[in-house]
């Protein structure tokens, strides 16, 4: 049994803000062979609400990578370009790490493929390249997608920050390898939380672009999450459709610290619309880097890297 990894105590206040971090992917590996289907014991609802991540992220993060590769030629600043390249590598590794969990679910009799096919359609067809666009329209499409990524990255940083500050998951004896995946990923999301926003502002500082990015992707993300949780609970072979998700139940689970509070999540989305918003105002780089120095997967990656 791998030992559970405590999240280090929050650092001294003066050291919390870190600017100009060098971003690099970490070559992490996880062993899922012994992951139980309900990896938060006796909490199938909380398990599956978090499992929606594994349904959305592999396709979603591959799409982030594609969008950011397309944005590279538009970048006019060397430091931002380096940060974007680091971001791309980190997202590519995230996608593969979650893909492995997805494959493991299938091996346990929970077939995620119907949902994943829809997610693939969303990212590859709905948000994919369209024929017959002029170069100016193509450029605008790249910038618009960067604005979607920036809005989604606000949520991934929010969730990452939550994962790093979720003692409820430790109390509930959640599987330590899954906790390490969530916290390693969450920490890298906090670490690179400014990149997509900075790229968007670099390509288009207009407020309207930022608002559109959140107005379109925020509600869609919430909807996909609810839909995914409902799907997983229905597809779970051990539950046989007995468990139906509800907001009341989600609120109850959140109060025990197993999920982020739904109200706080929505409030966080609204903060993104404040004119003076910047991602560095949320979460702590020190805490994220402190966790990455502890994480069994990140440490093993460093040792064989």
């Amino acid at each position, binding site marked *: 049994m791998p030992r559970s990894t405590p999240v280090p105590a929050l650092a001294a206040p003066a*050291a919390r803000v870190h600017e100009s971090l060098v971003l690099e992917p970490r070559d992490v590996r996880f062993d899922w062979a012994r992951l139980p289907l309900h990896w938060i014991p006796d909490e199938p609802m909380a398990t599956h609400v978090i499992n929606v991540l594994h349904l959305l992220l592999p396709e979603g993060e591959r799409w982030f990578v594609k969008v950011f590769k397309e944005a590279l030629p538009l970048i006019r600043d060397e430091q931002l370009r380096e940060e974007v390249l680091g971001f791309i590598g980190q997202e590519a590794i995230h996608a593969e790490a979650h893909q492995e969990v997805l494959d493991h679910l299938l091996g346990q009799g929970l077939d995620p493929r119907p949902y994943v096919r829809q997610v693939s359609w969303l990212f590859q067809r709905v948000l994919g390249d369209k024929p017959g666009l002029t170069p100016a329209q193509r450029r605008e*499409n790249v910038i618009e997608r960067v604005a979607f990524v920036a809005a989604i990255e606000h949520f991934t940083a929010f969730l990452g920050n939550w994962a790093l500050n979720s003692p409820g998951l430790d109390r509930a004896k959640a599987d330590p390898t899954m906790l390490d995946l969530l916290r390693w990923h969450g920490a890298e999301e906090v670490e690179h939380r400014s990149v997509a926003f900075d790229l968007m502002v670099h390509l288009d500082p207009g407020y309207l672009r930022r608002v559109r990015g959140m107005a379109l992707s925020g509600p869609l993300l919430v909807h996909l999450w609810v839909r995914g949780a409902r799907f997983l609970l229905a597809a779970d072979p051990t539950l046989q459709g007995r468990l139906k998700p509800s907001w009341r139940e989600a609120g109850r689970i959140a109060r025990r610290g197993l999920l982020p509070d739904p109200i706080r999540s929505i409030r966080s989305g609204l903060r993104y619309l404040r004119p003076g918003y910047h991602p560095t105002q949320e979460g702590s780089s*020190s805490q994220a880097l402190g966790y990455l120095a502890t994480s069994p997967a990140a440490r093993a990656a460093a040792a064989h890297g």
Partner: protein
Amino acid sequence: MDLSTPPPDLYGRPRTDTLIRRLTAFGDRYSPALGGPLLRRNPRRPLSRPTPPLQLAVAARRQLASEVVELTFADPSGGPLPPWQPGAHLRLALPSGRERHYSLSGDPADRLRYRIAVRRLPGGGGGSAEVHDTLHPGARLTARRPRNGFAFCAEPAVLLLAGGIGITPLLPMAREAQRHGLDWRLVHVGRSADTLPYADELRALDAHRVVPRTDDEHGGVPTGAELLAHAPRGAAVYCCGPAPMLAAVQRALDASPAASLHFERFGAAPITDGEPFAVRIGADGPTLDVPADRSALDVLREARPDLPYSCHQGFCGTCEVRLLAGRPDHRDRRLTPEQRAAGALLPCVSRAAEGETLVLDI
């Protein structure tokens, strides 16, 4: 994936999913609408400008230890320099055109000066010799703004492990730890006392927390366990030193009182087992020579600066290109045999035998 037939209903019902149908219709109208009024970047706004390089002048130079020189830089007009935090480095463009990273060893509170210390490496790429030989007070050079790949997280208990010149990023950390009243220790490892730079500044911070550890007095190089024995329980370790020292600390960490390890990652190791080969960009494109000690990616980037890449080590897959012809030597850890058979190649690590030309679809 099939992009012409919409995916079926989630629960196997015989109908197209309403959400998918609506999203698809929306996306098909939205993409061409972008570029119209209100749905485009305001063309009257100027494009964002690249950050200009820093202009620096050498303000002072002093000998710190045998073969170690300290340089202090300032803005030529005396203005403040961009802020930085412990662990940050400066990328200097040397007069020859070489670029080198050096950790900042001064005090971040001093906004007027940057300070670095450089040991002369006889077998290096010539950067340290150039610093020693050409950078005298008054010399001008450019640099990139400080960046941090070794950020100090100010955990309550901290062990700093410095190997020789590796003290440079750790000295500002020790200063910050002292300022915050953290429980910190610093072990400074070197061959002999005269090779340990900044011994006086460290003693002035708090002599009880600093342990000089020299090979000549302690009978050889320390083991990882010996170094980590100085860690307070649950401490975060920050290690900067030669690769064997870092590897020894990594191996010994789990059995030690310390809880976590921070160190600076330097990307790809130098290529030592490569042969010279060539890459061609497209079937009719230019042919570029790849020397034995450089990667195909580095050579390709000179011709195509927008080529994406990230890890430089063959695991993230960002730089994947399609191979049109040639026999490659795959050295990545990412691609499956099927992907390789279909022509995928990672030019950051993969190479070819001497005289071979890899034709790439870029």
